């Protein structure tokens, strides 16, 4: 059966006018509009353009919520299998509208949605992690290349066959890493890459080095004797029984536990669940990883003001940087709220 495709375009590409028409509300059009003819040709017999939703760029971006609801209603009335929005090239407002509607259409209507952006279009920055898009040139002069590429990507997604890597299927990647099987094993790929690198030939690394965020350290503690110090650890120490079911590796969560009544960690009250080291000695005495006993001693001696009442704990082994960053932000916010002056982080 032929797939039903609905196009989305702005006032300009629909032939309704330029800036003066940029406030026009969403409306549905039947018949082929603007680049619709080119799309119909690119889709060929496999899909049929059943209509077009048109909306002014200002209208969409100044009232995102309202415009989105109206556009979705119009879409729904045409029962499409697929939305093709744009191409937006490097038009900022248009790119944002295309991204927003594509994301909503796939989330709320469960249909395939495709757009086209110049890689620096702000729409990609905002919606690029959620939306399938092809890279386009920066202006409408690139329409000829963009239309067939978008139709091809839409048909590819409509086929239901597992999507391949972005570089092979020619779409803008969504910032997601996925496992695939190559033709060659890893060792052969490495030797080949080494030969190319040595000869000065172009080679393709399989993971571009990410840029780490540099977090500026907090100002030094002015007076340790009045400071509140917190203990945190990624060493997998948790209250006996692991009440919050923190994972032994690849942690998805952290736990916050009241130690105000505890002077010493023992096998009776705490344990290690960490999946990355031999836990024998940590189980024997959890203070070896989370030195609560020593901190209490220093607190009693008046070396610092007060040990914060809660410990913040997780496992650090095979835990993704994204999760670790989230834990850090969540823990830091609570510390700030509670007036913690400094924290000691122990790892393993």
């Amino acid at each position: 059966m032929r797939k039903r495709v609905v196009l989305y375009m702005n006032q300009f590409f629909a032939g309704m006018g330029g800036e003066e028409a940029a406030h026009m509300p969403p409306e549905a059009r039947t018949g082929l509009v603007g680049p619709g003819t080119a799309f119909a040709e690119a889709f060929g017999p496999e899909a049929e353009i059943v209509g077009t939703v048109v909306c002014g760029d200002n209208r969409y971006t100044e009232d995102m919520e309202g415009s989105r609801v109206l556009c979705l209603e119009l879409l729904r009335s045409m029962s499409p299998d697929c939305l093709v929005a744009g191409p937006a090239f490097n038009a900022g407002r248009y790119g944002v509208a295309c991204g927003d509607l594509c994301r909503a259409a796939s989330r709320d209507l469960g249909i395939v949605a495709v757009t086209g952006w110049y890689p620096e279009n702000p729409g990609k920055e905002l919606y690029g992690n959620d939306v399938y898009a092809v890279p386009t040139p920066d202006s409408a002069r690139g329409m000829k290349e963009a239309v067939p590429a978008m139709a091809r990507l839409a048909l590819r997604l409509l086929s239901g066959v597992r999507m391949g890597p972005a570089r092979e299927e020619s779409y803008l990647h969504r910032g997601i890493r996925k496992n695939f099987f190559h033709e060659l094993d890893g060792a052969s790929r490495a030797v080949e890459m080494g030969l190319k690198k040595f000869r000065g030939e172009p080679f393709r690394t399989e993971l571009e080095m990410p840029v780490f965020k540099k977090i500026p350290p907090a100002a030094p503690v002015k007076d340790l004797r009045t400071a509140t110090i917190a203990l945190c650890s990624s060493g997998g120490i948790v209250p006996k029984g692991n009440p919050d079911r923190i994972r032994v590796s690849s942690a998805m969560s952290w736990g916050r536990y009241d130690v105000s009544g505890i002077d010493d960690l023992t096998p009776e009250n705490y344990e290690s669940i960490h999946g990355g080291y031999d836990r024998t000695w940590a189980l024997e005495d959890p203070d070896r990883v989370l030195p609560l006993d020593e901190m209490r001693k220093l607190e009693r001696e008046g070396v610092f003001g007060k040990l914060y009442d809660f410990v913040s704990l997780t496992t650090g082994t095979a835990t993704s940087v994204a999760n670790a960053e989230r834990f850090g932000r969540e823990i830091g916010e609570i510390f700030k709220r509670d007036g913690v002056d400094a924290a000691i982080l122990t790892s393993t």
Partner: protein
Amino acid sequence: MKLELCKAFVRDVQWGKRTCLAGGVLQVDKVSALALFEGEKRFSSVDLDLARPGESVRIIPVKDVIEPRCKLSGKGECFPGIIGGPETVGSGSTLVLKGVAVVTVGPIVSIQEGLIDMSGPATEYNPYGQTCNVCLVVQPAKGVEKAEYETALRLAGIRLAWYLADVCRGAGVDETEVVEAADSVEGKAAECGADLPRFVYVCQAISQGLLHDTFLYGVDVKQILPTLLQPQEILDGAMVSANCVSACDKQNTFHHQNNPVVLELCRRHGKDLNFLGVIVTTEMMTLAGKIRSSEYTAKLARMLGAQVAIITEEGCGNPDTDICMNAKNLEEAGIRTVVIGNEVAGQDGSSQGLADVVPEMDAYVSCGNINEVVVLPPMERVIGDIRAIANVSGGDEKSIRPDGSIACEIQSIIGSTNELGISKIGCEWV
């Protein structure tokens, strides 16, 4: 150094009255095989089980996998320093039972063992669904410390693997692979001419202690400075795993014996490149240890006159710092580097995959995201204990689903993201 790998192909394994190999079928005499472990007080029980390719069998919790090999001629014995003496191996000929693996099964750290499936989707991720597996299933004796138990199980696996090859010495050889190169740097240069790029292979081995160890000629690698090997030594079992780190990226002894980087560089030696040798280096726990080993590695590579280095990682997270330091130090010494590693990109694949990075690491071969979730169908038979999945890295209490299938990260599958690059897995942007 010239090593002949005399491969006897095995397509089936069965119980028999006498351990022998005939017509591609390995017969295992269970009684005499188990007699190897008589008097071993560190085990409360020892048993053997067989698993064949295509069977509906799941093996869990797996510690190590070893390929049966023994020396037919030449100095020393396979697994030097463990079986027989510490003589330098890598010359003469070696019998390889191709298509057989010894699999050691039993809980040590429980969270750092993994699974092998003999059929279904998990077989895509490692070579062990295609081998006839002789499983050594062991329970520790009460009161035995983990480190002692690890030692006992490691040695037991090696002994069983050597025994299986040793008793099959008379078996016919189906294929011989010759791995040969001159001993000295000058000799290698004469073989290759001046035009071929000079490669070294930097093999990082986990050596962090706390059951994260590797043995080289029977020596605990955390006690060594980086050292130099001929490639053939690796193939004769000079490196043995003593490793209880995440299942997906610990080098099994099988991986060392079949090190794909060593084999690929040997095959291309004299054709596309000049393979100078293997630098075995450490992945230490301390920063000082990392700096010492990385500096020393770069020095050895310079002494050899290397121009390109292939660096392989073992494990993830902490050892990311070792690959970074090695890439940086080698590149600064004018040696072009390629790193083979994996990624920890989260279950949804959207996280940064490495814990440490340097701009010098610009040629990276990725052997997969360890966190990607797979569903493995139920198997009719389990060797070991399926409940172990709840505690294995990459699994959790919800991993076993009501229909008996398992949903876990590929991290739980032995060797799934092996960083020697033994499989075809890779990771891509989508």
